[in-house]
């Protein structure tokens, strides 16, 4: 009897887990599905396959009648995308470099303020975004700084450095420090040692950190919302505004494209993370 119950329990668990995964992906699946729905009025009722919404996104002509055209100016959308990319790429570059430098400092040197710095670096990640957002808003306005791409980049860097720091630190901790000693022993200056020995070893961590920073920056809504100012909009803020003004089928198309982009980047990141680093004792025998 016990065994039967156990088996039933296991079946239930399996069934539940299936439902769990469906729950996770159903909403996403719906968006993708409905982005191809040609019904311009009620997007929930399937009216046939259509690429119209994608076409109207890019300003191409569609099969819809004139007054069915809801789309905002494509220019605005593309401008938002461009801003997002500029911000994300700049932020990624800055935060990856600074995050890596900081990780090196805390991992390879022993000094009195070490614990303090560790706590300090953790804080931006723990703070709720909204607090960060308005604090930065007050600061920028108070300091007389104009709100725009620059302020967004600064805002993003502030907390993304911590993320990169965490990932690179983990990587540094797992590295054999004697390799760096050997390099110095053989005559390499500290910079050369970093360039030729340390960096290749931590590169997967650095790239992983960079990818994460890029994704988070591209997707950031709350902080950007407060410090973007009037003239610059990033993609998430733009979409948020679009949704607030009313649901339109084009949003499904944008959403699907974003999903595909995220999927590709996430897959890339996970692939890189699962590639194990070379170790000198890999296949050593005897």
């Amino acid at each position, binding site marked *: 009897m*016990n065994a039967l119950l*156990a088996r039933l329990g296991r079946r239930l*668990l*399996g069934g*539940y*887990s299936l439902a*769990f*995964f469906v*729950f*996770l*992906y159903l*909403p*996403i699946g719906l*968006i993708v599905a409905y982005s191809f729905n040609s019904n311009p009025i009620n997007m*929930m*009722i399937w009216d046939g396959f259509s690429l119209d919404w994608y076409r109207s996104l890019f300003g191409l002509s569609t099969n819809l009648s004139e007054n069915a055209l809801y789309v905002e100016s494509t220019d605005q959308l593309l401008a938002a995308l461009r801003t997002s990319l500029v911000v994300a790429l700049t932020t990624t570059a800055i935060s990856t470099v600074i*995050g890596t*430098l*900081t990780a*090196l*400092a805390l991992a390879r*040197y022993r*000094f009195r303020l070490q614990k303090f*710095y560790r706590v*300090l*670096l953790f*804080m*931006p990640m*723990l703070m*709720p*975004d*909204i*607090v*960060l957002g*308005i*604090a930065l808003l*007050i*600061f920028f306005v108070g300091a007389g700084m104009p709100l725009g791409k620059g302020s967004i980049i*600064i805002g993003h*860097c*502030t907390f993304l*450095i911590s993320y990169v720091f965490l990932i690179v630190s983990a990587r540094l901790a797992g590295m054999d420090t004697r390799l760096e000693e050997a390099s110095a022993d053989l005559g390499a200056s*500290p910079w050369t040692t970093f360039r030729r020995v340390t960096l290749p070893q931590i590169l997967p961590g650095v790239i992983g950190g960079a990818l994460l920073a890029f*994704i988070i920056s591209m*997707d950031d*809504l*709350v902080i950007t919302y*407060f410090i973007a100012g009037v003239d610059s909009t990033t993609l*998430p803020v733009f*979409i*948020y505004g679009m*949704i*607030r003004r009313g*649901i339109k089928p084009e949003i499904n198309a944008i*959403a699907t494209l*974003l*999903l595909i982009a*995220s*999927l590709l980047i996430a897959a890339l990141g996970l692939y890189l993370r*699962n590639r194990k680093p070379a170790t000198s004792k890999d296949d050593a025998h005897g």
Partner: protein
Amino acid sequence: MLIRERLRLVGLLTPVTLIIGLFFLAPLAIMAVYSLLEPGLYGGVEWSFYPDNFGRVLGWADGTNEDFDPVYLEIILRSFKLAALTVLATLALCYPAAFWVARQPERMRNFCLFLITLPFFTSLIVRLYAWLLILRPSGFINTTLLALGIHSPVELIYTETAVLIGMTYIFIPFMFMPVYASVEKLDKRLLEASADLGASRWQSFWKVIFPLTLPGIAAGSIIVFIPSLGNFIVPSLLGGARVLMIGSLVEQQFLAARNWPFGAALAMLLMAAVLVCLVLYVLAQGRNSAQEASR
């Protein structure tokens, strides 16, 4: 340490010190100051000490404005309630799934983990938008019900339930990872020992498995509670004007009402709540490891 080394260290740490000092600590300090200032008539601030912001939060009159009005208190309590419910909901959903995934062979396990963390990398706004589509009066649920012959539309959008659903959906990956980590570490032999000593399956679960997963549950709870508390996107999209949370209030004060000091005071309270949670968590961790050490 040699001077040379010390210089290098200073060089390495200067960028992060500048950025976090200037763009994180300083703004927070200024915000703290603002929370004690008087709001100006047309937005902006008057530089005079004004402790009533905090009082207003809790509902007390500040002489010029309303009489005791607990509306803000309501919002704060609702935020705590929804955050707590989100923690419970994500925990309830993730806990069984974590056990199932831990059971799978390695490849399947990695694939499942990939599937669960993938949504985290996709756009937040897209995921919430999906629920908007589902919960709207003309959305997926109602359309399906209609198709099944049920003609009374269920009002789901712009309710606390909708916000709860939204937050739960967003924070599932956050709860899953720590919980899964502690489930994966479970030693099967402990279960065997428990059974050997006469415990039923149920007892084994409550006396052995559950306590051992508590660290993961605690970590997940903190990781979910804090962002839920201060969230403003989910209530904004799925809660509308009817379901306001602390985050929505703050946004209002800063962008619509232009009462920055009041908004700052709210943000300070949020920060305080977060700090209290963290302190409690760290203390619990400390007690836990002390218990472990004394065994």
